[in-house]
């Protein structure tokens, strides 16, 4: 019995401790409740302020989605071009250079996406800050504004880092693009096929349908008065009248 009570107490203590810790975590990171920009009890200037911050988030999100789309398109294009274009034995350098260019382009687009993500994070942080400040001003809630401001500053710093990377990837992309065209020009000078870039390596387009063939496959038409239509007057029924 004694042993049991000891075990029971130990377990209870652990449970209580765990509960406290959980509450601590919950209370540590504050959650800013959004304010409704359509709430007529709030002054108009407040509502405008919050709505403007909201708009910033929406715009940032749209830009992020656009950046994603650009990246996907670029990837698809790269795959398509690599599948379709064949520069032959002389064009190995061209292919390598093209690959490099595509990869730098992707890096650049990924950096753009990161920037868009960073801008979105910043917009969200600013929205949170605007909401918290207005809530405090109008006695709706209490928040630790400093913590939120720190978040905003952190987001700004992140953005700055991303911008630097963007600039680097851009410069790299420009270099590889210029290099690619130089390689291509050299390829042409060395007698490379100027059609490869345009026709790719796919087969000629197949005949669309199995229509009766003309030309060599067709029965030779008889000579007729009308060579265009190959209509022989003898084939025409006579006028019944």
């Amino acid at each position, binding site marked *: 019995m004694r042993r049991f009570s000891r075990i029971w107490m130990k377990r209870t203590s652990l449970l209580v401790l765990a509960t406290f810790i959980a509450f601590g975590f919950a209370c540590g990171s504050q959650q800013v409740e959004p304010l409704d920009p359509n709430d007529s009890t709030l002054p108009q200037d407040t509502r405008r302020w919050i709505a403007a911050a909201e708009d910033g988030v929406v715009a940032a999100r749209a830009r992020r989605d656009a950046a994603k789309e650009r990246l996907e398109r670029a990837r698809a*294009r790269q795959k398509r071009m690599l599948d379709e274009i064949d520069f032959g034995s002389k064009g190995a350098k061209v292919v390598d250079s093209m690959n490099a260019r595509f990869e730098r382009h992707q890096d650049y687009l990924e950096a753009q996406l990161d920037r868009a993500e960073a*801008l979105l994070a*910043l917009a969200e942080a600013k929205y949170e800050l605007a909401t918290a400040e207005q809530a405090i001003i109008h006695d709706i809630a209490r928040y630790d504004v400093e913590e939120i401001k720190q978040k905003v500053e952190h*987001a*700004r*710093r992140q*953005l*700055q880092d991303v*911008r*630097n990377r963007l*600039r680097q990837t*851009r*410069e790299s992309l*420009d270099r590889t*693009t*210029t290099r690619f*065209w*130089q390689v*291509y*020009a050299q390829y*042409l000078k060395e007698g490379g096929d*100027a*059609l490869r*870039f*345009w*026709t790719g390596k796919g087969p*000629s*387009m*197949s*005949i*669309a*349908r199995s*229509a*009766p*063939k*003309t*030309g*060599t*496959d*067709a*029965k030779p*038409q008889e000579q007729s008065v*009308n060579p*265009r*239509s*190959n*209509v022989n007057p003898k*084939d*025409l*029924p*006579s*006028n*019944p*009248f």
Partner: protein
Amino acid sequence: MSKIVKRYWVNFAGLFLVCAAGCAQQQVTVRDAAYVEILRVKISKVRNAIEETRETIISARNARYLPELYLRLAELLSEEAQYHHRLAYEREQGGGKALHVPQVRLLKEQAIGVYKQLLHKYPRTALADQVLFNIGQEQRELGNFTEMQQYLQQIVKEYPDSPLKGEALLVLGDYYFDKGEVAESRIYYEQITKDKPSRVTGLAYYKLAWVWVNLNECDKAIAAFEGALHTARAADQKKKAGAKGSATNAGREPDDGRYAEDGAHTDNGSKKEVSNQGIDVRHAALVDLAYCYSLERKPENSVRYFRSLARDRTTYVEALEKLARRYGVMSEAKGSILVTRELLRLGPINEERIDDVKQLHAALREAKDYTAVGSDSLLIASVLAAYCSRADVSDRVRAEMKKQFELFIRDLLTRAQERLERPQQERQVERAMEIARGYRVYLHAFPQSKAYLDMLLNITDVLILAKDHLEAGRRLLQAAFMVDPRDERRRDILYDAVVSLQNFLHTKRTDVSDLEWVLARSGLRRAASELLRYPLHEDKIRTVKFAIAMTYYDEGNLSEAVDRFTALAYEYPGSEESEISIRLILDAFDTLSDFDSLMRAAQQFLASDSPAGQELRRQISPLLGAAQQRKLDEVSLEAAGDEGGGLDMLVSFARYNQGTSLGERALLNAFLAARAQGDSEQLYKLGEAIIRLYPSSEQLPGLLSTIGQMAVARFEIDRAIAFLARAVKIRHPQQVRLLVTAGELEEQLGSRDQSRLRYQEAIRATDNRGRAEALEHLAKLLEQEGDANRMVAELAPYKEDNNPEALSRLALAQLALGKIQEAETNLQNVLSASASASSEALARAHHGVAEIMFANSLGYGELNSLEMVEEYVAVVEAIQQSYLNAAREGSLTYTPVALGRLAFMSRAAAQRFRTANIPQQGLSPVQHQQVVSALQRRAEQLEQSAQEALTACANQSFAQRSFGPAARSCLSGRAWDRVLAGFDKFARRTSKSEPAGLEELRKRLSRNADDIEALRELGSRFLRAGDPHYARLVFAAAIERGGGAVDANLLGIAENDVQNYSGALSAFARAAEGGLEAGRQNLATLLRKLGLNAAAEDAIKRYPVGQSGGQLLSKGR
């Protein structure tokens, strides 16, 4: 038991058999009764009716309705005769030989007898016309034509208004017509047509028309047929109107029930007589009209004509069919075309339509009329489709029809196209469109045709003539797909497709739909890409490639377009396409606002190995410059944004373009962005970078002055002075202002020599219009130094400027040196310019005037006469007034000076009065004593005035918080004994190093210049670091921007440290007024330190005990 079962089964089997047999026998076929039987029944019935009627007649003696009974009897007899006739006919089964039926004749004669009896008995009966008509009909049927005529003529003659008159005439006309005597029959028919309309008028017209036909008078026949049609139409319309209940008033009309046309019995049972029953006049007339129409009228109007006369489609179609046959026989092509078209459009789909198609085809070929070949093809194909969809048409027939029709359509279209391609065809486009329409029908209707490809190619030629380049291109592409890739024609077809689609894409964009645009582009791209697989001339290859690239460009897929154009440019350097491609590449990047790519591409094409020609390169250079500027603008905007853009981007951009004007601009933009952000550290760095890298930049002067101003705002005075000096060195347009600012700063730091030099440099740097400010500052500085010789030496050269500030100071200096006359002139100049002179200058001027008078008054000898006394009194009063004028100007500096000097002068004057030695000569002792007493009193008054002046001066000091040397002299009870005002001399600044940790405070001030807390802290740190010069500037700024007593007290401490006692006392007084006890105590402490104990006591009394806090100079009371 088995027996019983057996018996049961046997009985059952037997019963089953019986029933089966019974059922078999009862299978009776029920058929309709034979027509013969029906007739027999009818005969029986009519006989019964006859008997009944006879009996009724017998019993109805003298009845009014006896005539009707007789009439009825006769009709019944006639009816029985008819039945007998039909019976005989049925029996003989319609054989061709004549029938011999005696009952018929007998009965009819009986009927005639009854009719005659009726007439005889009732000659005036209303039924007479009917009876006569019936007799006539009977006679006709009996073949007694003479009698028939007689009776019918009798109706016409004796009963002209009878509705049966027309009938009678019709019968008579038919009689002659049947005999072949058409001329005779015409007479009778015309009698009907010329009479008023009746229900037989239409028929009469119709008959008359046939008369004319037989007489070969087709024009008259047409008129008669038209008459029949119009009359019949009118009758129909009237009948319809009558059916709605409207009354008619044209004799005994059909609506009275007796004379309906359809042969049914009337309401009263009497038979209706209509000659030639079963003729639908409107139908028959129109159809029969066809023959004469074809002979007499123009075929072009035929369809319209017949349509206008037709009652319904069936009639119309039948008439047209007849007409079509006529035109066919006549080989009338135009008519055949029109009529067969209409038949194909409206007629039922049967074998006749097939013939119509053939006729149409033949007629079109005959007339060579292909203007509507598209519509015709559609008609023909529609007929074929409808015919082949019939369930009763076999597959063989279908195949045959398809083959035929395919030939027809193909023949027509190709012939039409041949004619089209002849030169100078009118309305070629319109015709081409029509032919193309026909080709589309063909291609749709005969997809398996062996000639499909040829026809497909044909349509493309036609579409090109019709300027429908889009479809032409698409059809060519389709044709190309049908041709074997090894076929040589395929290349040409593809090329034509490319050209066509390109032509389409040259159309004005607003004239075509988005779908068409997309189709054209994609088609062009496919065709062109495919075409490149074939051996082509180089020019063609280039053109085709360019076309491919343009499709991407047009659809906005600029990244693809750029790659294609770039490839093209390198593949064909120097060509027209290459040049255009390069331009389009740059344009594409410009459209995308991708300035990085635009710059890269421009640089690529400006490189030595570029495919661009010289002329193009010259055009690219400014584009590159513009792109760089726009990129810079973009980067600058981003850097200045709230999104933490930072200056790094601009700095990197500048580094990337170092040594160029773009790099310079980038750095300048970064500098401006740093200023906007308040990032001083960056501002200094960037400023230094610009100065180092671009020493010739035109923006340098502004930049340096900006930095200098910012340094001042941050209280980095040394730095500010350095930057301002550098700005001056590079000939800043505002260098005078900058020099003055630098001089002010140095003055504040106690570097008066340096300050003087700045002012002098500023004065030299400009003319008299621009040096006023510098001159004033110099004059003020010299006055504060107190060296009259120097003042005169430095200010006299500029007296012609007539600057009141400088002139007044110069005058006082001259006075101090005894140069009365020069001083007087200058002072007069100042006073004469009183409107533009400041109160300070006027105060000096009045003070100077007073000093001059005072100096002059000192030249007076001993007062030893009354006249001298009087004069002296006047002079003293004038001097007093002048000093008071000076004091009233409110100058913080010269009010105490004037008051002090007033006291000085008053005491001196008092002494004069006291030591006056007026002789008794001419005066009685009493008078002499009075004079002496008066002089004593005057002296006392002057002493009092002197005291009052000093008191006023002391009070003024506290009131205005002005504690300069002259004021302090007043506070000590001593009159000021000098001409020039005195000034405290600042101690020189010794500390040059800044205390640590000021950057944060400066940043705060950069963000908010009115941050009093920051200012106080900054000043305090300077104070603690032993730099009271900086500290006093900071505290002064704090007070200016709204600081309170604490800041004033701190300012006092700093001022005390720099030995600016007047400033310190003023600040402590302000602090005391602000309620700070430390200020009050510090004020008293400093006053005591300066030997002004009484004033210190006065200060303690003046100001109430204040709040605690604040720094003390030393232990105060």
